[in-house]
């Protein structure tokens, strides 16, 4: 069997990659993809635990996460489109009019 720690390590690496991309990338679409990456990394962790603890709760929770991710992607893309129409730019650093 593949040990649990391998799954978790993969999950962590994916999550960190997603987080790093989320912070450092400039294109809004790329940022969204990184968000999805983080969510899926967490899904992977849930599945791994579910398998290794013999408890189905983890897999049920994955369903919830997938649903939320989907809804969030839909709404987020709608916002991006509205932003693009107004600013002609997909650079996240240009979205700064809410500064104090």
């Amino acid at each position, binding site marked *: 069997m593949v040990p649990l720690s391998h799954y978790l390590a993969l999950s962590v690496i994916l999550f960190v990659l997603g*987080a790093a991309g*989320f*912070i*450092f990338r400039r294109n809004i679409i790329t940022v969204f993809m990184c968000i999805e990456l983080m969510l899926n990394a967490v899904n992977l962790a849930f599945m791994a635990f579910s398998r290794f603890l013999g408890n189905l709760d983890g897999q049920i929770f994955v369903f919830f996460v997938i649903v939320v991710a989907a809804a969030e992607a839909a709404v987020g893309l709608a916002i991006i489109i509205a932003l693009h129409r107004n600013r002609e730019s997909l650079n*996240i*650093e240009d*979205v*700064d*009019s*809410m*500064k*104090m």
Partner: protein
Amino acid sequence: MNLEILLLLMVLPPLVGAALNGILGRRFSQATVSLIGCGGAGLSMVFALLSAWIYSNSTIEPVPFTYPYFTWIQAGELRAEYAFYYDRLTLIMTLTVTVVAFLIHLYSRGYMEHEGGYYRFFAYLNLFLFMMLTLVTAANYPLMFVGWEGVGLCSYLLIGFYFRKKSAADAGKKAFIVTRIGDAGFTVGVALLFWTFKSLDFKTVFDRVAGLPQRQLESVLTAIGLLLFLGAVGKSAQLPLYVWLPDAMEGPTPVSALIHAATMVTAGVYLVARSSIIFAHAPSALAVVGVVGCLTALFAGTIALTQNDLKRMLAYSTISQLGYMFLGCGAGVFAAGIFHLMTHAFFKSLLFLGAGSVMHAMSGELDMRKMGGLWRKLRTTHATFLMGTLAISGVPLFAGFFSKDEILAGAYEGPLGRPWLFWLGAFTAALTAFYMFRGLCLTFYGKSRVEPEAERHLHESGYKMTIPLMVLAFFSVVAGWVSWPKAWHGSEAFDRYLDPVFGRATDALRNVSPEHNANLSSGELMGFSILAAAIGMGIALWWYLKSTDIPEQLAERYADLYRILTHKYYVDEFYNWLIVRPLCIISDKFLWRVVDTEVIDHVMVNGTGEETARVGGVLRRIQSGNIPSYAAWVLLGAVLWLLYVFAAHA
């Protein structure tokens, strides 16, 4: 009729009158205002008389009548009711206060007719009467203090009645601030009293003190006595807190008559007399009372010798006579002190009202050097003023003679009496007679030195002012006859009457003081006091009627002494240098410039604002609008939280 209702009916009308006149008086006519004002005072007098009658004929007499109406303060062990304590002393005080107050209210109808603020005056005067009655009928120290402070307030309001005049406003402030010093002593004394006896009720405290064997608790009782006396020193203008009284003459003359001669200033004497049992068990404190009283009487008497302002002279005379009252109490003859309080109320208010009448006639002039020969035009004023002068000088058969003689006798042979107290007192009596007759002569007799302008307006006052003068003159003559001296085979009825009040105190004092060998008999003592009055009167008449150039020559020859006396020993200047100027400097340079402007305004108020703005400026940088930075903060927060969770579990 129940006494508790009568007493309430005595005390409340002036309060109602004050409220009515104070709140609605602006719209009332002068007639309505004076009706309410004099009505309030008149009702008080009527009910005071009724209460006296009912009490005197009741079965409990002479035991004090007490009645608690409701519990005013209940805090732990401290309990103070709104309650009256009515005994023979209260009877005398209430009668004196209400009669004199009523007469002065009547007089004010005439005097204040053409002054502004008519309704305000009567409102304050009524309020004062209410407070004074509260003071003398109170059954415990806190309630008495309410009256004490109340009369102080009314005194301030009335002295500063002509508030647009700076000297009047200053005088009001001075009176209040100086008496405050005394009030501090009073408060601490009451606190000490409570700490010792766990009660502030007269009956409770006095019974407990009376039950003490001699010498027990003496030190704390002495402290209490001295502190209470400090309050009296302030309120009754004794050394060294007398300085406010002469300045208080800025107020309208009826105020000077009522508050600063007959009633408020006697509150201190009442306090000492009421607390007689406490002082009796603290003879050292009582001795201080007597000495301060005697010295004050002498001191003020010397200043009165050279005063040229008629009211100022009377003011110093009041301070001096108050000293006599404290001398009486201090020597252990409390009844004599109260007797003098009563007679003094009559003849002093008479003298002041007479001065007001003169002032009225002289178009506001009070400098006696610009008077003279007024007896021709001001017949009634002159006649009554003469009665008052005879009374205060201690001329036999007039009121002041009997009371002053009793005090002097007590100063010599009373429980704490000492011969030197008597001799100083007798000398002061000579001074009293001198300056009073000096005043009389300068004002009414001799050639007229009145300025032509004023001469034309000289007129006797109307009936509204002269009738009270005549009534007071009557009392100034007969009020002394209630206590015919022993030396004339009298029964000293007044003293006997007050025995139930002061008996315990007097007995306690007799145990302390050894019988002194009285070298002089009462008859001889009386002889000396009559002689003193005669000498004073004689010299005054000689110098101010016959050889009128003598005073000027003396003033030239002893110019320095004359200057010191005219400047009242420079006491005001001394206090100014010692206390007022340092306080003003500290207030200005430190408290205002440093504390108020710098610390409070700059550091605390502005500083808080500026700090908040600065911190806000720093925190604002989180809201940069830069979304990736938001993401980074979220991540940081999540990491920290995770660490915390793991740390807690580890």
